[in-house]
């Protein structure tokens, strides 16, 4: 056991010997986490949609004016829903759309008012949408559609009122019948009344911050954990310390264990610093329950043992570190470590289910972001632990084999 301690003690001393290296090792994930949390973790306020209008030629006191004024006044969460730009011709409006100044165009027919009140024709407003950005298109088109449909409601109501007025003045209906007819017509004009209520759960900003907090921890595990584990054993072998062991009372497994513990502890210190940096910067208390801490330790062990495995199948420290590095990038992307996995194609998502660190990270996110238990996630956690142990066993076998053929 003294040998384990020797390597652990030496590893920690060696790591902390270079202040500069320590700084950069720890600062990278912190910067990463804070940066993303800062960018995506603020309360999103709604923004106005720029819309180009080509009005009816003589638009004073017309329905077109009512329509446009309505748009002007539409407000959501204290912010104007539309930002309107007037154009005199369709072609000048089109060029604005093309260069992205407006996201949609509403072109009113010259006979708009007449048409809509007399009800002769259809397609009285031409709507042109920019579909170059699919997400934006989806948003703009649905907002416009809902505005238009609410305007239609208003038009129907106006028409109904005109009709009612006509009926009360010219028809020979009893007061009772008029009330019935009015209700009947109202249900034509506005068949459904929706009521909006807003769910105030954990704010989306906090969710995003916690998401990137865990992402930064995952990045630490994959990058610093996997890469340093990969190069550590190789460097002992290349340096000759591993061979030097043969003339001491220390056994190779003690070296392996000591080195693994070193890498593990450095990863956990790094995670702790990430959490502290989030607490300081975002001024919110973050407490991890024991289940999360346990999953963190296993996740760190999983990348460490994967690094060990890499050092077993490569010949030099550089090759081992290079391999770990080459794998770290795609791994962090496709397993949902720092890239929400719903954005990924199906087949990639399934890789994340099997990569232990990301499976565990998902478990951690369930607990600290979505306040769920991990009971029904147990199979995945057990799978991740099993895979970690498999990495560890294969890595140790390769290590023993390398020690024999030094």
């Amino acid at each position, binding site marked *: 056991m003294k*040998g384990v301690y020797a390597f652990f003690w*030496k590893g920690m*001393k060696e790591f902390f010997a270079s202040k500069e290296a320590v700084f950069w090792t720890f600062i990278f994930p912190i910067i990463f986490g804070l940066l993303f949390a800062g960018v995506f973790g603020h309360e999103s306020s709604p923004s106005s949609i720029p819309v180009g209008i080509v009005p009816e030629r003589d638009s004073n006191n017309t329905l077109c004016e009512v329509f446009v004024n309505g748009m002007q006044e539409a407000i959501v969460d204290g912010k104007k829903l539309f930002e309107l730009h007037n154009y005199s011709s369709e072609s000048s409006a089109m060029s604005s759309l093309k260069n992205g100044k407006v996201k949609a165009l509403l072109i009113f027919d010259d006979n708009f008012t007449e048409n809509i009140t007399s009800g002769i024709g259809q397609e009285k407003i031409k709507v042109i949408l920019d579909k170059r950005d699919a997400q934006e298109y989806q948003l703009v088109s649905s907002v416009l559609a809902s505005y238009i449909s609410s305007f239609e409601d208003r038009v129907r109501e106006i028409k109904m009122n005109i009709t009612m007025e006509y009926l009360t003045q010219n028809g020979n209906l009893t007061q009772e019948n008029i009330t019935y007819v009015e209700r009947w017509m109202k249900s034509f004009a506005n068949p459904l009344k929706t009521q909006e209520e807003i769910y105030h759960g954990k704010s989306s900003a906090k969710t995003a911050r916690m998401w990137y907090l865990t992402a930064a921890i995952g990045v630490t595990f994959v990058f610093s954990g996997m890469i340093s584990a990969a190069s550590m054993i190789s460097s002992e072998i290349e340096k*000759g310390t591993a061979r030097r062991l043969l003339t*001491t009372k220390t056994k190779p497994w003690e070296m392996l264990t000591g080195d693994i513990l070193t890498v593990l502890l450095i990863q956990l210190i790094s995670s702790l610093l990430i959490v502290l940096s989030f607490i300081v910067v975002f001024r919110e208390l973050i407490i991890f329950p024991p289940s999360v801490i346990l999953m963190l330790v296993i996740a760190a062990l999983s990348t460490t043992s994967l690094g060990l495995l890499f050092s077993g199948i490569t010949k030099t420290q550089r090759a081992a570190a290079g391999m770990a590095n080459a794998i770290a990038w795609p791994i962090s992307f496709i397993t949902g470590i720092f890239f929400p996995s719903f954005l990924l194609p199906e087949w990639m998502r399934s890789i994340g289910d099997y990569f232990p660190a990301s499976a565990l990270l998902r478990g951690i996110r369930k607990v600290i972001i979505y306040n769920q238990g991990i009971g029904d996630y147990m199979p995945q956690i057990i799978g991740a632990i099993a895979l970690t142990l498999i990495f560890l066993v294969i890595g140790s076998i390769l290590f023993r084999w390398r020690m024999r053929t030094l």
Partner: protein
Amino acid sequence: MPLLEVKSVTKYYGKKKVLDNVSFSLEKGEILALLGPNGAGKTTLMRIIAEGLTHRGHVLFKGKILKDRSVIGYCPQEGILYEDLTAYANLKFYSYLHKRDGRWARKMMEKFEIPDKKVKELSGGMKKRLSIVIALVGEPELLILDEPTVGLDVESRHQVWEIIRNLREEGKGIILSTHYMEEAEHLANRVAIINEGKIISLDAVDALKRSSGIKSAIEIRGLFKDIPQGFVRENSSLVFYSQEPKRDLVNAVTIASKVGKIKEVVVREPTLEDVFIKLTGRRLKE
């Protein structure tokens, strides 16, 4: 009973025979120098003894097959020091590996006057000294030092020699490798001349010189275009090994003058290098 016996050790790397039927023994309080050019197999031989590298033949320690290698103090050719750690931390680390504590390390630092700086700030001589002290951690009876003075300046080299001599006084058996003939001459009780995996001669320095049949070396310094028959080249000199320098001197000078310009002629005692050249036709350092 000898401290160490190496019996018919042969080693292949792939198809290449790196050691060929090597045998020798070492007593307590004896220094054996392995003298040979680059690639001769010195390190391989030492690794077989110290690390148990697979091989044919036997290595016996006090008459028994060597199994527990912690009885050996090994100072490998390559640096085994952690450059970012202090000298003391390095020594302490290796003490832990030998299941000792830090106190021993502290004592050794004082005894061998090693400054407690980061290794990368130590001089080459200090690093070597530290590496040798590390080999002493397990208080071994047998020390194996692979090129303990390579790359050192003369003064540091002499300090290391002093340490090695003292260790012999303490009764340790020491095998060291070197390509410096002076080192072998000044330190070793016996020298094994090793070339291309074979021990071609093994004896005390004087005996080696005697048995080589060289009485003196006529060294002719100058600029020469050619190496005449019977001569060898050493640096820019032509050397003629002679049994009777008085008889051969004029003859040798006459021949040398035909192939170049002579600046200086010296008649000197043969060195181990001369013995090596005589035996192998090669120089120790090419």
